[in-house]
């Protein structure tokens, strides 16, 4: 081992706000009125890691998704690899499922379509630029990880169980309580766990990069604006508490975790915008108040080896399938970072974390592969929005659309088991 083998890290960011927002609208929760503009800018962050001569990138972004079916995932990885020389399988992508971000054309006009092409190109070049900046700023570094539990609710379980055993969505997503029945309670746990990775230069006290991962599926409200929403607010808040540091934030797997019940929504747009901004600040503040004191100040190490595992379900999928699953894991000493699909239910994520052989495992969800909810089996029997079309058949019938995203009853469990298999193998190799 030489000092050259010891960990180096660098960090970079880039703006990915759509240049012509009025011609676009955020995807997810279709908007009913024309898009007005941008409440706060969208951003991508990249952390470059190099140890033992191997390099990897960890990326986080304000986006809802990376649109695998439109080739964005592959295009991103290809262009980052070409620019930085990094093995494409060590480029970990993630989004946060923020429903005020990833754009689509507001209508079918040529202008709107051109604006969408421009916005998507800005997203892709933003990722490349952030990674390039991170690579350029590589410097000797040490890392430490911690886990904490939020003191006040931020992400709550959005499903409730009725007295007849069936499930309904609560908070903002499809609630109804019929006569003769009552609510038993939430269908699963709220999201409290936050994993924190701090990166600093040896001999210094303050980190220059902080990665937080938190299980959620953020969509405060379907406003006709682009915004970094809660994840953007978290990053602003963390950066104000750690001046000079770049905050990277990923939503881990939280298909059933929403941010809805904090306080009542308003009925009209000006008040809704005010409510939205206040909600972002309130939730970000709750998050940062717990997380900031838990950012590690000791226990730092300089690993001399970076190992990775990669899995794609491509050989088993039909061409262009939305079911394509990509798992991408990088490990440094006893810390593993996993890029994976994000709409797996929270309980499955907690199961994965509890069984991981690594002391600290970071789940970076919404990597653009395997879009769609993936709950644990009983949810298909309970019902609710996420599974209202029932489980997909075990084998697609002839002629089935490649874009089908309905999960099978075993989808989430298989992703968890496959991830654990890769983690175990990595642990053995590291």
């Amino acid at each position, binding site marked *: 081992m030489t000092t050259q083998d010891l960990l180096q890290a660098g960090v970079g960011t880039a703006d990915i706000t759509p240049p012509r927002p009025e011609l676009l609208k955020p995807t997810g929760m279709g908007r009913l009125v024309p898009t007005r503009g941008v409440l706060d800018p969208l951003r991508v962050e990249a952390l470059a890691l190099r140890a033992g001569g191997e390099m990897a990138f960890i990326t986080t972004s304000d986006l809802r998704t990376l649109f695998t079916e439109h080739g964005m995932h592959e295009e991103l990885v290809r262009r980052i690899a070409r620019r930085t020389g990094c093995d494409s399988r060590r480029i970990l992508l993630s989004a946060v499922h923020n429903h005020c971000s990833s754009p689509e054309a507001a209508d079918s006009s040529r202008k709107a379509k051109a604006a969408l092409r421009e916005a998507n190109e800005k997203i892709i070049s933003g990722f490349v630029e952030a990674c390039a900046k991170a690579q350029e700023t590589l410097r000797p570094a040490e890392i430490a990880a911690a886990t904490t539990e939020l003191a006040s609710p931020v992400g709550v379980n959005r499903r409730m169980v009725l007295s007849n055993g069936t499930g309904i969505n609560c908070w903002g997503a499809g609630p109804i309580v019929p006569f003769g029945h009552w*609510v038993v309670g939430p269908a699963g746990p709220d999201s409290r766990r936050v994993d924190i990775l701090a990166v600093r230069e040896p001999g210094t006290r303050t980190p220059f990069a902080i990665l937080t991962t938190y299980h959620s599926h953020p969509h405060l409200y379907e406003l006709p604006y682009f915004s970094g929403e809660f994840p953007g607010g978290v990053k602003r808040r963390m950066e104000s508490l750690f001046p000079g540091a770049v905050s990277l934030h990923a939503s881990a797997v939280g298909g059933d975790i929403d941010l809805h019940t904090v306080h009542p929504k308003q009925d009209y747009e000006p008040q809704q915008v005010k409510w939205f901004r206040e909600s972002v600040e309130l939730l970000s503040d709750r998050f940062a108040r717990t997380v900031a004191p838990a950012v590690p100040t000791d226990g730092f190490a300089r690993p001399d080896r970076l190992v990775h595992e990669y899995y794609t379900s491509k050989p088993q999928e039909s061409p262009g399938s939305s079911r394509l699953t990509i798992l991408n894991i990088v490990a440094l000493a006893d810390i593993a970072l996993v890029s994976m699909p994000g709409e797996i239910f929270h309980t499955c994520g907690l199961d994965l974390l509890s069984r991981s052989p690594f002391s600290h495992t970071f789940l970076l969800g919404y990597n653009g592969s395997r879009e769609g909810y993936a709950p644990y089996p009983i949810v298909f*029997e309970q019902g609710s929005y996420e599974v*209202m*079309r029932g489980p997909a058949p075990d084998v697609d019938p002839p002629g089935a659309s490649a874009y089908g995203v309905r999960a099978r009853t075993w989808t989430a469990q298989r992703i968890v088991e496959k991830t654990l298999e890769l983690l175990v193998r990595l642990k053995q190799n590291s």
Partner: protein
Amino acid sequence: MTVNPLDMLIAGLLADDVLVRADAARLLGLTGRKEAVAPLAAYVAECRHCTKTAGIEALARIGDRSVCGVLRRIAEWPNVPDDWYWFFHRGVRAAACVALLSLGDDAGAGYLGELADRKHDVFYAWFAPAILRLKRRSPAVTALKARLTVEALTGEGAGRTRFTNPGTAAMVAEALGLINSDEARTHLRKLAQHQSRYVRAAAAVALVSGGGRRAEREFVAEMAERDRTDFVRIKAAYALAQAGEHNRAQALARFAGSVEDPFDLATTVDALGQLGRREFLPHVRKHLNHQDPYVRQRCVEAMERLGASVRDARKKLNDPDQRVRLSAAQFLVLREARKG
């Protein structure tokens, strides 16, 4: 200082937790006490969460027509966020309309008719049983009930997810049980094969509601014996016991001693309470301190029906879970009323 249990229930309407507020409303409705009407009316007018339908149902159950003005306003403007994509507005409005109809006010019929015109699941699934249970025979009620045919509930007009989503499928099963025609029973037999245990259970109960014919009882008996889940076996046994097969009640009592899943256990305890046979009290009481608060809550409510002593309820006024405490308060209110 002794707390008045009715005051405790009314205070529950002001709790921070929307589920506690809804439970307080449900329990107040079951007491039938007129003193609850004004606080319930304030709750349903002020609360901005869909769970306030529990308060609307409670007002309908108490039957005081002085709240019709409040309910009419909610039927027009439900004071919940207008989540156009979902059910918030529609569900609360429909609840107010059904409550109005049960109170003898036809003001809600128009909106329910609109939902029916749109073949909406709020009408054809979520509130179909409540509409079919309306006792009044006004032209408006009769017209709405007439729209809830087996064909309308199950035919081509049914929304694409009505039967794939277990939530709506279970409500349709309940409605078909109330219709109770040959055609309805044929559909219920299909729903008894649903992938969801909760839909199968709803179908089992619906098939023998009102006693059921021999063929249906045999069909449900098969479910009680052979379904792969405890939940369906519990509900099927309960349905048969309700239909007069007393040996099935013993099976339920055995379940109370063997099932491990808290929700299944709570369902069993609830079923034993519904049967109202005092001999089952020990099977229920032994779970009164279960670690799951929902099991404890179902125990308290079942024990009231089974004639337990007020001593048990008083102890539960100090339960760590507020919803259990509210059920204990309701127990005392009901017992006081019976004594009076």
